């Protein structure tokens, strides 16, 4: 069965997209994950990811905080992109490949779409809106850029 047949149809109405991230991130997750969006400028992403990588490099960052404790076991930082941003994420991967070992993981993630459908005017003053939710699967790619401690 092809994947396309499982695709759900779009409901007519105002489409509100929601973030696919709903799990509570740990402190380390917050500091080592970079999410690429379609609107993220490429060079800005490169700089921001480099800054995260530099944080763990003893030569660049003298702070001991990032060498011990919970950070000691940390091997890689994560860069994620989904849907339209996959291409940009992969090109970021190729950029970092020259200096760092990069692993690429692919998968799909479930997102929830919200549709506001205008119903026949029930109230006199305002149009009554009905909200519908629909699940959708989106492809995503994850880069694991191995950090260098020295």
């Amino acid at each position, binding site marked *: 069965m092809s994947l396309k047949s499982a695709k759900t149809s779009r409901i007519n109405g105002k489409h509100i997209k929601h973030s696919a991230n709903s799990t*509570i991130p740990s402190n380390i997750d917050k500091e080592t994950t970079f999410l690429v969006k379609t609107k993220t400028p490429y060079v800005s992403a490169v700089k921001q990811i480099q800054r995260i990588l530099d944080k763990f490099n003893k030569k660049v960052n003298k702070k001991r905080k990032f060498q011990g404790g919970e950070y000691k076991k940390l091997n890689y930082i994560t860069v994620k992109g989904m849907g339209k941003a996959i291409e940009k994420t992969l090109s970021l991967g190729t950029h970092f490949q020259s200096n760092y070992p990069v692993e690429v993981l692919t998968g799909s993630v479930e997102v929830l779409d919200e549709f506001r459908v205008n119903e026949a005017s029930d*109230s*006199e003053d305002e149009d009554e809106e009905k909200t519908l*939710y629909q699940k959708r699967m989106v492809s995503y790619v994850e880069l694991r850029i191995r950090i260098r401690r020295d």
Partner: protein
Amino acid sequence: MPPKPSINAKKAKLYNSRTIRTELSDPSFTDKEKLSIPDFLKTREFEIRSFEQSQLNTKYASSSRVFQSLPRTLRRRTASHNVKRIPKRLRSRAIREMQNSVNGQPEKRKHQRGRQLYRLQVMKKLLKLGSRLKLMRGVPNEQVLKDQTIRNRIKELNTQIKSLEKDRSSPEINNDLGSYDNTGVDEFAPRPKGNLKYHKRQKNFVWLPTHVWHAKRFHMTKQYGYQIPLAPTQKCFKAMNRHNKHDAVIFDTSFHDKLIIEIADNADFIQFLLEITKYKKKLPTEIVDGTKSYSDWIFLENEKVAKVLIYANISLKKILVSVLPSLFMDIYFKIKAKLANYKSNTTINDCRYSLGSIDICGPQALPAISKILHLYKLENSDIQRTWRTLAHNTDSGLVPIGTTLSFSVKDPRFWKRPSRLPPSASDISLNELVIALNNETSSNIDSDSIANLLSSRSRNESYDGQMSIKSISKEFNKFYELINRSRIPLLITKLAEGSWSLILPWYWVLPIWISATKVRQIKVGGLKQRHQFNFENEIPTFPYDFPFLRDGWLHNNAVGTLTEAKFAKLKQSHVDISRPDFQNSSIISPFKCDWTAIRNIIFLKKLSGKTDLELAQLDPGFATHVGNFSTRELKSLHDIEQSSKSISKIYTEEKAPEISIVIYCKNNEFHKQFVDGAYEIKSLVDVKMKQLPVIQIAIRLQNKGSISDGARIFLSDSFNTNPEGFVTSGAYNLNEGQPTAIGLIRADVKKLSNPTIYIRNIGKTTFYPAKFVEIK
């Protein structure tokens, strides 16, 4: 006690601490050019050590006081001369530092003599009797709290204590803390009495349950008969934005006045809801049966009054309304009048001082608060499952507005630290839960808890045996016995602005609050932070952004009066009257959003029947009048400006509306005509009697710039035109990384396709091009 060191000795110590001793001989150069580092270091060892020592000396010698090393959140005002404001572990050092300081420890004040001493002694007696009454579980009666001599108050207290001693079988309150349910049934509830010692200072402005906690950490403001936390004393503008983006921020919103309306008949119950909500024909069943709450406009006499929270439950026949305090009286009387028309039995309960609330915003609102809410055992496991899923996921606007849960929790003070809710195998994913919540397959309301929360007697019962922090720590070994004794009913619901509101009995707010502040993810905000978060998410805030409502109108006028008074006090040399808006000829006040002037100009131009170009071209000349002198002929722009000034003096048979603007309503005939440009203004009286239809907009600049409150909105970047609206809140938006604004503009801009507007700040000459979207 050691003698105080002389000032010279102290100075000498300070200077000594800064001198670093050095060793001059240097044999580490083996060859003349080569430096052997280990040798060099070895020879410098003495210097390095003394350098390090000197650093320590400086640190200990003096220059910094112990409270300066505290993190910001632990710093308190005037800690330099009051050791009680420093954490206990550092107090002894603080006392030592105070002894060493130039002024030394402040001297103890000599005790009072004569009349003052007598007054203190009598006051002490009164307070002793007061605490005795509290121990006997009595509440001081009105006579004790009245403004009269202390001796008479003592007399009253004595008689009350004696009567209580005679009959100890039925104490007035059921706990040692003085908590009791203070509801007014079909009448206004009396103000909470508070502690006898602090009664006087909360007579006119009621203290919130968390007042003492807030007073130490916040700037307070006296508004609407309450003392409300305004903003933390510490700088927190950026920090608060970050907390709201990643963690959670809580607000004590117990000053939102609550009402419970009981309507015995089901048909009347539904009819009442239809009249006050936006639904006019059919109510959604989930709102009637209490599965969801309604967080939107309340309609009274077919007019939008304010945005409120309504929770209705037809099986209990009760409707809970939570309104902003400034509107309470108005809404109370209007609802009372409405209820009088129903045939069935109706009651209106004033729960202003019996139901408190805490608002939580931010993506981690529920995960954070769930760490202290330990659920009392529930018959319905669905509620538990929903709560667990919500507590294990961040909510970035995914959970539907109006989602409501109700359950009972145990006293959170029995847990020494916040603990995460353990996950369970039966948990469902957030996406599935959201779909289920939207389809209303099941209710998340525990019927017992909601009944307890909405009934005065049960609320009072929930205080039974309420323990103080001291008694909890004393009896901590009886943990398992005690935890099931307390049962706090509460309601948690999602509001339209995306935050969650926790409604619970008034005297349980403080225990929950204090436990909540111990959760790492939770930070605390005041009124200003609420405004900041709303602004950053482009949500209008009441009353600042609602000048078309009475409170917003009054706020705008008050701002105008205050700024004008401040301006009048400026030295002449500091006043530049050549600035735009401040010129004498300016007819629009530079101190506020002058809606009346804008309305007058727009309607007068319409009355003149001339285009802007024609008006501008005509020479002012002499004023000519049509009929009597009160109506001037409108030939030029000058005529319009002059007439605009005199409109307030024109006599009208009916009373002119107090507010010059009105929010656009698509069903209003005049508003429709106004937007189409087909409206008619017949006379100057018409100008005064009509309100200008406006729409609320969110504004973003196209390029760099800045926007401040009260900035003017134009449709062209020329000084020859008049403003078409005003910015009500404008500032730098940390969420957007650029300045944004919320404002109001004349409603007929709706007709223009994708117009560019121009923003000019008060007294400034730069016009910033901007785009806007209507806020509905």
